């Protein structure tokens, strides 16, 4: 079914490109389209706890979901005006190219080839990640370097598949790779013992571990074998839209840096500090320059919170995943999350 839909999407994309119809014309149209539609179309994963997954009432929550909610809050002053489209790793970029979605927030790694040849542009890194491995405790493996000869399950069409090949080759180890289309199939095969190790981004390992029937029997190995800067992406060619998405992300980081959170935002509006005044639009027209309103950051922070709040709620200590901030701490606190200033 999924395959058929993708094939259909590709065929339509191909036909439209061939006929020269204006599919998602690469011009400053996306914002207007979103406003006319009254909702943002957001591509997310098929269910990755902490990043994007539906709860028991069908509401999508997660760190990536919050990026889309923040954009919707900035445009509509309503974080609920988002339609989520779950996509497999294989289908995600095609959905963006063909105009099915306006923004892809789906734990996708920013790489040069994706940025240059797939008709998409990454906005800003919202999560610095790296690839790791999960194994059974009973194997008594303490390091990824002890995995010589192992069978490894990965998800197809991901950077994990490539990093895996690089890592084993670089360390002169043999391996067997079994690649599945969806994360669920991959985890199921790992749990059934088809493979010794499951390899993907560490954040995803934490999330998938929760889904296993006996999470305590599994351990995530300490090695990080790759750089995985996860970033949302937009269709190439619409610079206004690119700037908007990028600055929604930056605004959340700047808000955290300036100590503006969903709880303190009302108070902060009275702040005399020039940086906070510019951030919250009590001074200057920075929001209007982006095609938004003056109080765009107030809307974002009120509805979604700042970067730190979103992190804690979804993947950090306030969540089931409990991943420490690590690299994703602000630059002022020893991490590498650093946003350009609003001015």
């Amino acid at each position: 079914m999924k395959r058929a839909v993708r094939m259909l999407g590709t065929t339509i994309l191909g036909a439209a490109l061939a006929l020269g119809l204006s599919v998602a014309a690469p011009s400053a149209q996306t914002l207007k389209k979103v406003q006319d539609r009254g909702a943002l179309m957001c591509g997310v994963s098929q269910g990755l706890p902490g990043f994007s997954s539906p709860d028991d009432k069908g509401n999508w929550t997660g760190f990536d979901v919050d990026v889309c909610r923040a954009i919707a809050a900035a445009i509509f002053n309503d974080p609920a005006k988002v339609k989520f489209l779950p996509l497999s790793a294989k289908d995600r970029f095609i959905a963006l190219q063909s105009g099915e979605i306006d923004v892809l927030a789906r734990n996708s790694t920013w790489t040069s080839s994706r940025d240059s040849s797939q008709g998409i542009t990454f906005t800003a890194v919202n999560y610095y990640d790296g690839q790791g491995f999960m194994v059974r405790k009973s194997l008594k493996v303490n390091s990824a370097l002890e995995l010589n000869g192992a069978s490894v399950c990965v998800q197809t069409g991901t950077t994990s598949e490539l990093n895996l090949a690089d890592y084993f080759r670089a360390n002169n180890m043999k391996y067997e790779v079994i690649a599945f289309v969806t994360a669920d199939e991959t985890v199921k095969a790992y749990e059934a013992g088809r493979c010794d190790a499951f390899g993907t981004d560490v954040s995803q390992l934490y999330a998938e571990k929760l889904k296993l029937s006996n999470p305590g029997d599994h351990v995530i190995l300490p090695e990080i074998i790759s750089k995985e800067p996860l970033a949302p992406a937009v269709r190439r060619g619409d610079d206004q839209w690119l700037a908007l998405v990028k600055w929604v992300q930056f605004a959340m980081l700047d808000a955290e840096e300036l100590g503006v959170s969903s709880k303190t935002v009302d108070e902060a509006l009275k702040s005399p500090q020039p940086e906070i005044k510019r951030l919250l639009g009590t001074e200057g027209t920075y929001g209007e320059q982006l095609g938004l309103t003056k109080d765009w950051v107030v809307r974002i922070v009120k509805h979604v919170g700042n970067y730190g709040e979103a992190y804690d709620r979804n993947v950090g200590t306030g969540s089931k995943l409990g991943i420490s901030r690590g690299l994703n701490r602000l630059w002022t606190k020893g991490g590498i999350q650093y946003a350009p200033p609003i001015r």
Partner: protein
Amino acid sequence: MRRRSGNDGVETPPLAAVIYNPQVRSALYQLVLVLALVWLGYQFALNAAANLGARNIASGLGFFHNSAGFGINFSLIPYDETDTYGRAFLVGLLNTLLVSGVGIVLATLLGFMVGIGRLSSNWLVARIAGGYVELIRNLPLLFQILFWYLAVLGTLPGPRQSLSIFGTIFINNRGFVVPAFRLEEGFVYVWAALVLGVLATIALGLWARRVRERTGRMIPILWKAAALILGLPLATFLAAGLPIEVDLPRIQGFNFIGGTRIVPEFVALLIALSTYTASFIAEVVRAGILAVPRGQSEAGLALGLRRGQLLRLVLIPQALRIIVPPLTNQYLNLTKNSSLAVAIGYPDLFAVFAGTTLNQTGQAIEIIAITMAVYLSLSLVTSVLMNWYNSRVGLVDR
């Protein structure tokens, strides 16, 4: 060419005669249509390339020479991550051909057995065959593939607790590990003996047929043929001092090393595809046999043919004419259905090429077009072969 037009006796000028010639005209129309279609296709391609360029999406077939960078766990030809996308494409294509080819053979054998079994006068055999057909053909194929993969092969023990058959064949949830054989130099004599045996059997068969046609005396050649085809190479094999090296599998680390491993993805897909298609083939075979007039069986029995002979010499040759065209459909279905491999991670053409390669390169249009062309070619080749076979077994009009 000069022609006299019908009844008025006036001579038509030569050019007009050519234009009004219905054959020339229809050829002209067809030519114009073909040219228009080619032009249209060319414009589509140009337009697509220009639009892709404008959106900064890579296009063209240059990626075939780029290094693929991903591993594939089951390959008939040597392959590693440093090889090109072109080679990965070939690996996927061969995997598709392997599972379809073996699947077609197994499905045909099983299908004929079940189809004939369903017509058996033995109550139990007929019921079992009937039950098989009704159960298997009415369940979705994807469900059956997942059943075999997860519920049957997935529940096998891990490598260290493998089921072992005489310490040479090991069965576990990573697949079937069998000894690998490396042929030594002396093995060439065994091949020679095999060729000799086959040739001798053919000669024997021709002679037996000649005798039968001339005298009507049946000469049973089964045992002689077996001795020639199996016995002769075996004797040579022993005489040449066992020119073969056996590589027994043994466990080391996580998995077995040595031997040859057949991955469970392949086994699950093969079982599901062949049993599923066999249930349809069984019905085709049954219909074919039932369509042969009853008088033919009666005539055969009256001639004193035994049940097996009747089936082999009278019924099946006539039934084949009816069976072959729908059988072709089943073969095409099996080949196309093999793309469901993607559900269990068997690296077939669809998974490797229209899956991983598409995602790494982002060149959806080229890759989907090539994949469609490959499946189309496979189907057309199968059709051509089956049509040729059909014309051979078909009724010859005299």
